[in-house]
């Protein structure tokens, strides 16, 4: 099991357990766990509605690729710890991480 924490827009935190070996993105796991993540583009780094802030564990994640960085650059509320959750594969590197949901709700 991979365990990490998700902080919703209202500040409530919840620990998620995801079995290892599933090829899912963090965006898909968040949606599957009933968080409101629009994911308008379906995970192509084109809409930024899956924006999360990585409050812990940023350094263990694989670095963002150009498409993701381009998209983050267009956001008004992105910061050095911002990522697009659709571009993050859920694997052991997320263990212990804390992710705050930032993308627009509507």
């Amino acid at each position, binding site marked *: 099991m991979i365990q990490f924490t998700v902080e919703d827009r209202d500040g409530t935190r919840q620990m998620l357990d995801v079995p290892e070996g599933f090829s899912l993105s963090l965006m898909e796991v968040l949606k599957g766990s009933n968080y409101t993540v629009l994911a308008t583009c379906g995970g192509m780094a084109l809409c*930024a509605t899956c924006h999360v802030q990585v409050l812990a564990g940023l350094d263990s994640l694989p670095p963002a690729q150009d498409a993701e960085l381009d998209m983050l650059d267009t956001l*008004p509320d992105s910061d050095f710890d911002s990522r697009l959750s659709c571009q993050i594969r859920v694997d052991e590197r997320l263990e212990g991480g804390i992710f705050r949901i930032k993308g*627009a709700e509507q």
Partner: protein
Amino acid sequence: MITTDICIIGAGPVGLFAVFEAGLLKMRCHLIDALPQVGGQLSEIYPQKPIYDIPGYPAINAQTLVDNLMDQIAPFHPTFTLGERVETLEKQDDGSYVITTSDGTAVRCQVVVIAGGLGCFEPRKPDIVNLEQFEGRGVAYMVKNPEQLRDRRVVLAGGGDSALDWTIFLADIAREVTLVHRSDTFRGAPDSAEKVFELAQEGRINLVLQSNITSISGNGHLNQVSITAKDKTVTSLPADNLIPLFGLTPKLGPIADWGLNIDKSAISVNTTDYATNVERVYAIGDINTYPGKLKLILCGFHEAALMCQSAFKYVYPSQKLSFKYTTVNGVPTF
């Protein structure tokens, strides 16, 4: 006032194809879109991506699909109002509707078709408390007329292509140009980024990196912006204009206030003909919802065909509709 049979709100793929289906039944269409170009999400979000699930096309580039749709509907001479957002829908005594846009354009029609997709694309706004108070008073989210910025002190915010392009363009026009960007690099077009760094070095623009605009002030009109750097130091800068350029994102917008049954940001429709709860108002494409709804272009096309068969009775109340194949009849133009 523009007069037409069907007024289509939204010129995405589904709104465009509806013109074709309507045309086969001799119904004329006027389309309105808030974006300056047709094509909806395809042109705005993924013009260069291939789509693989359009029947008959193993792969088609999104912008090509839009161009093809425009060719396909050309025989029916649809008319367009682009760059204006539909604000109101008013029922007339004879059952027809008058639709008005943000710029005051009015369209009178027998049938309203909402093909609004995910809603209007609106500028993403930075989190500055009194930002809206200064909209139109120094704050704007696009540059409509660069001449209005001549000899002004202009602050731009953002790091995407349009922020870079406008910074370069305005360097020659404005009295002072400042670009504020949250990071210290630009990943947009490398040429533009290089040019911006050059202009900064030559002292022709101010480049404020690793910073965000956190507050603005003015007496009626904007006259100052405050910028907070990554190390939390705050500096203030006199400014006449602030142009945050953070791209567009779809919002349901005015559609929510038209008395339609809305379920989770989509309009509930009847699957017989995609009619809404309001007579003569239909909703097709991504904007509608019903049990089993899939937000696919293909499904929107199907909805457009069925909707037109139903709308015919409002446009030609005394005629009987007989179904004809295009192979039999060709494409009757008008």
